[in-house]
């Protein structure tokens, strides 16, 4: 065992920090700091992706031949940690972390040529069309159908919770191409232009005042057969590949670290009886407890990144990170509200530019509750808390 980071990481971190300081426009950083959703403003995401691309940094985790950086897992960790810390927006995760890797691994040469550069440069947003109204946790039984007619698939059905579908130009969809075989075997992975005739998108108003989630209705949408990725009927395998690809993402470790710092900051600035909350034993205790949890989570992530040989199934290990990380996202945001007390319940408009200038209200009150409200979703999307626990029970312990 060796518990030390490689020597070069300190320098690497410094190099990234300097670069982000130079590159990240102040208005985008402020927009992210004041954002009331759990990710980023999608337009800022694309702008930032373009900026990163100039350094070749928008998809550093990809293989070098497709535009990646050949950084070690630890370097990639430090890179993302620095970006989040500096309030840089995310890239469009659907492109850079989900369908991008599926395309370069299973896609045709034509698909690679057409889509990979666009993802690298943040040309447009990607929507993930997996979940359906009747099929969330039970995704394998999805019903949206794609029927081959000559050169096209005709797609009919409905998707829901499709993040940013209202402004996405392309979507990667799971569709049923064969209703006669075992559910998992009849699913295919289709790239669909969101401007195609027959697609209707409705934005869903959310608990936090945002309307990022969408319903997507597909009514006889014609999709050229060349937009199918890989083989017909192999879509489920690709979806699993995509979800397994990012084993440590679901720990939300970068966000947990950043949000803990925000909590420490609020505690240092909010006073009770003339003393900052950070000096009051009850809040001190809660901050310490969360710091302990975030620290342990970070080391759990490092163990995965350093390729520890696990005694248990690897998918179960990823679920451990999701269970701990998603719960932490919630407890930290709950602490933000508790630190703000009665000041935590004013509702500011979701859009930053609609918010009134109220000098009596600290900045953080503008979006702390919006973020805490949408954090309820972190134990729901990407496999609910209960589904993760089912996975652990089954794959780690064969129960």
């Amino acid at each position, binding site marked *: 065992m060796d518990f030390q980071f490689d020597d070069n990481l300190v320098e690497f971190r410094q190099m990234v920090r300097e670069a982000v300081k130079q590159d990240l426009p102040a208005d985008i950083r402020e927009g992210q700091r004041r954002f009331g959703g759990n990710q980023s403003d999608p337009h800022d995401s694309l702008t930032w992706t373009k900026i990163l691309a100039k350094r070749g940094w928008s998809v550093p985790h990809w293989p070098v031949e497709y535009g990646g950086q050949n950084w070690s897992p630890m370097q990639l960790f430090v890179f993302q940690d620095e970006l989040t810390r500096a309030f840089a927006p995310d890239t469009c995760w659907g492109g850079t972390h989900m369908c991008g890797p599926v395309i370069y691994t299973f896609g045709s040469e034509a698909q690679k040529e057409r889509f990979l550069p666009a993802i690298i440069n943040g040309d447009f947003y990607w929507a993930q069309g997996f979940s359906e109204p009747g099929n969330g946790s039970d995704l394998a039984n999805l019903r949206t159908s794609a029927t081959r007619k000559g050169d096209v698939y005709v797609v009919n059905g409905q998707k829901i919770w499709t993040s940013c579908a209202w402004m996405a130009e392309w979507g990667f969809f799971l569709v049923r191409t064969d209703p006669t075989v075992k559910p998992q075997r009849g699913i295919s992975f289709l790239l669909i232009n969101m401007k195609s005739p027959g697609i209707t998108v409705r934005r869903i108003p959310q608990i936090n005042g945002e309307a990022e989630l969408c319903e997507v209705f597909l009514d006889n949408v014609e999709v050229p057969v060349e937009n199918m990725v890989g083989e017909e009927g192999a879509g489920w395998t690709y979806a699993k590949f995509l979800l397994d690809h990012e084993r440590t993402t679901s720990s939300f470790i970068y966000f947990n670290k950043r949000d803990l710092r925000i909590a420490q900051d609020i505690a240092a600035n909010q006073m009770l009886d003339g003393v900052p909350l950070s000096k009051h034993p009850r809040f001190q205790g809660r901050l310490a407890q969360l710091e302990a949890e975030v620290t342990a989570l970070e080391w759990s992530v490092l163990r995965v990144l350093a390729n520890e040989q696990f005694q248990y199934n690897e998918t179960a290990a990823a679920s451990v990170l999701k269970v701990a990380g998603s719960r932490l996202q919630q407890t930290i945001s709950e602490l933000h509200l508790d630190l703000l*007390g*009665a000041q935590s319940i004013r509702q500011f408009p979701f859009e930053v530019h609609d918010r009134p200038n109220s000098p009596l209200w600290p900045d953080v009150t503008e979006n702390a509750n919006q973020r805490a409200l949408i954090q309820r*979703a972190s134990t729901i999307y990407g496999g609910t808390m209960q589904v993760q626990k089912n996975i652990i029970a089954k794959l780690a312990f064969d129960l």
Partner: protein
Amino acid sequence: MDFNYSDLQRMLLDSAERFITEHFTLEHRRSLRDSANGLDEVAWATFAELGWLALAIPEDLGGLGGTQADIAVLAAATGGKCVSQPVISTAVLGTHILSGATAPRTELLEQIVGGAARIALVHGEPGERYAGAAPRAVTLTADGDGFAISGQKLLALDAPSATHLIVSAMLEGEGFALVLVEADSAGMSVENYPLLDGSRAADIRFETLRVHGDAVLATGKKAEALLMEALDRATLARLAQSVGSMEEILRICSAYLKERQQFGQPIGKFQALQHIMADMFVVTHQARSALYQALAHAELSAAERSRALSLAAITIGEAGQLVSRQGIQLHGGYGVTDEYEISHHYRYLLTLEKISGDLDYHMSRVGQA
């Protein structure tokens, strides 16, 4: 002991539930967000007709002389549909102070009963978490034959739709003073805004607002005691609203678990969810017990009353968070939309908890008492 409703409470509850269920649909509540001050005028007129606005006023002052238990029964019914109308500010807090003032304000109480007047307490100030009985920075100073109020107030609940404000201030030589001010008086600048539950609040800056001597409702120890009583009564009513909301969440979620299908069966068949539902039931049951315990102490000495109330606030605050968090979890993605009841209950309970003094506040009140 008898924990069953009296005939009067039964009647109150039946008429309340009937009206509230019919009137305060989800769509209706969502549409109220667009109104200028959040007030539902039709509902307010009905509240007056049903006698709710008179419930807490003593009989000799023209009210119904209801007990705090009667108020709790009604408040729990409003909580079931996340009603965020300014009922507690006016008909619990406001009426208590106006009835207990050195010279009771019968005329204004009459207007309240008829639905024409609404009251908001203007007490909190910047830089503090929960005001309680701490001295105010806002001052009341003698000015000719009257007084002048100056200073900054923060987060005055329900002020945007109030016709009258009760302002707490420090009067030299007296300590606390409670002053009645018409809401459209000159000499104040007001910023109105919504809270997470759809109710409204305001920050108010008094730039030497001049009032008559008879605007002073009470001063000194009497003012302080009256204010603390009124605040505790309002908190108690809000705790009852929370309990009502939680009980409705149990109903909503148990129905959802039977209706929603995944993996070819109702999700209520999954034991993981059955246990979550059972946990929600346990803490909701405890919450109602805590409410009764607070009601049992509600008319005792200030120290006994406040301590019992804070114990209830701790139990109910924690229960409310557990129940509404898990309520969302049980709904999956539907839980985080604005289009399902459950997210409204979440925001409602969060708002009630944070208004009434958070856990830290109530824990230190219990610890110190």
